[in-house]
């Protein structure tokens, strides 16, 4: 199993804690689409990515959409 940074480790070895999950989601949104996780979720919820799978950006948005529960957790 891959090591994760100590700051992300929790007592539960199978679940990322909320802060680590939010940080992961924000980092991936910035890396893949150049925006914060919160901005991505706002755009997603507003329907900005509807039927956008024909482009790499649209498919990246779909990837983030599947991970979105990490970004919606309370810190």
């Amino acid at each position, binding site marked *: 199993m891959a090591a994760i940074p100590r700051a992300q480790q929790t007592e539960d070895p199978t679940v990322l804690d909320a802060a680590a999950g939010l940080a992961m989601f924000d980092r991936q949104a910035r890396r893949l689409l150049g925006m914060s996780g919160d901005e991505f979720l706002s755009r997603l919820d507003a329907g900005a990515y509807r039927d956008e799978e024909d482009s790499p950006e649209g498919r990246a948005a*779909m990837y983030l959409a599947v991970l979105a529960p990490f970004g919606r957790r309370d810190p």
Partner: protein
Amino acid sequence: MVVATPERAFDAFITRFRSTVGCVAEAGAFGDGREVGGVQSVVLTPRGFEAGDPAPLRSRSGQRDLQLRVAFQYTIVAVPGDREERYRVTPLAYWYGILDGEGREILLFHWHPAGVSNVLTPHLHIPGAASVALGTRSGKGNGKRSVHLGRMHVPTGYVSLEDVVELLIVEFEVQPRHPDWLAVITANRAASESIRAR
């Protein structure tokens, strides 16, 4: 697998998930919760990379020219039993991507029935596929119509993570990390299928 607590259901699921990924990649996997009824996700954590990054794969010829990116949504449901409720993990969506070493998309298996796409059934993208100019049976016609494979949503059945890992080993010549990979894949696929059959 139906077990006595939501925690045990999730632990069994994530253990299978990790062992399947571990057949080809040095990567962990973490969920974001074990609550009953919630929409929750799994993310890969490749060793040496950030959580959510694609996991590098090694070919049988020793090259690191492929990567695997995975996101998975699940929920934990209560299953009424004779004496008490029991629990199992049910898939809600997946995003499996086979990428080249530079991150370019090769094959993408998607299923997002509650997502933002108008294609809600499991499908395959082949982004790098060339367009095909269509000939006609008679040889007549303007000959200008093409089909654009790279833009298609090619229908598939449900594709399990085990299917993708087996595809990587058998067809993409990824080096398995364990000699018993096929036994692992077979057992985990059977467990996955038993859940979806309920």
